[in-house]
């Protein structure tokens, strides 16, 4: 499936990890990901729990926002850092709370190498969905139904944080929504910029930690509002 033979496997891939107060898990998540992806940039989004120190001990690159800006801003910062690195061809956004699987990311990068797509978006709605908490499932599927763009592009999981994309997307990406509403903005950019998009079934590991840290459903209200007033260009 992948070019496993050569030692510098995935050396043209950059993992972008927005981090905000993930102290309890971030070092383990980064270490596990480093085994497959040698290039990781963690964007510490003004954490107050020493996440930055823990990241610094792992060998991942670290960029620190002086103040907390939000996950969308952190992803944009990470992409701008990564796309300036020599040899960077592929980029993956990966959550720092341990809910994403390295194997899923590897599969998505492999598709970028083989297929004619610019961006591969993870979806948790292929196959068995019974592990997703019921209320969360309803909210996420409602979000898909409410997104005409997402439907048109054939996306089933608009708010999935695991994405892999190529250099073209990385250079055109310009997230202006700082908070969680950036997912909708990325879908809008896929549409506007004409990026060729594909979906890859992925697993989300809903641990107690990630559920506690994850977006509350009430935050969906904020996301909807952010999308409504997003700067339209």
């Amino acid at each position: 499936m992948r070019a496993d033979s050569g030692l510098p496997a995935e050396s043209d891939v950059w993992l972008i990890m927005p981090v905000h107060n993930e102290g309890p898990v971030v070092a383990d998540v980064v270490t596990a990901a480093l085994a497959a992806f040698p290039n990781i940039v963690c964007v510490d989004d003004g954490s107050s729990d020493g996440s930055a120190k823990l990241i610094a001990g792992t060998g991942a690159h670290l960029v620190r926002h002086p103040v907390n800006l939000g996950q969308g801003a952190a992803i944009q910062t990470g992409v701008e850092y990564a796309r300036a690195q020599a040899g960077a061809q592929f980029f993956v956004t990966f959550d720092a709370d341990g809910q994403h699987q390295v194997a899923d990311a590897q599969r998505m990068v492999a598709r970028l190498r083989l297929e004619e797509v610019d961006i591969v978006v993870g979806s948790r709605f292929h196959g068995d969905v019974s592990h997703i908490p019921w209320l969360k499932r309803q909210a996420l599927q409602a979000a898909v139904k409410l997104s005409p763009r997402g439907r048109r592009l054939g996306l089933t999981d608009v708010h999935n944080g695991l994405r892999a994309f190529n250099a073209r997307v990385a250079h055109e990406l310009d997230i202006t929504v700082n908070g969680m509403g950036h997912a909708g903005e990325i879908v809008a950019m896929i549409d506007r910029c004409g990026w060729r998009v594909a979906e890859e079934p992925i697993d989300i590991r809903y641990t107690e930690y990630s559920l506690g840290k994850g977006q509350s459903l009430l935050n969906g209200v904020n996301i909807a509002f952010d999308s409504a007033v997003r700067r339209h260009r």
Partner: protein
Amino acid sequence: MTVIKIVLILAVVLLALFVLRRHGTNRGGAYVKIGMAGFVVFAIYAVLRPDDVTWIAARLGVGRGTDLILYLLVVGFAFFAISTYLRFKELEFRLSKLARALALAEAAERERGEPDHPAPPG
């Protein structure tokens, strides 16, 4: 003239002076100043001759002058809320650009200093 009238007129005049002194000199600022001047004239007039406001209200199909003032207040407040919101958004956008530039510059600096990603200060 009742005390409340003096208090209201004084408040309006002080507010106007405050806004006119503080605002910038660009085009938008000029419109704000014109609007503010109009507001001051109308406010003082309304305080002195409340019956005239009631007359205008009746012409517009609104019952009392106070109701007219209330409606204008609601519209004015909505306008204020939206413009403030947009302003904050714009500010937030600039802040992110600034913070991002700072973060990237700091990271580049740190990596130039020591290639092995040393522990950040703090």
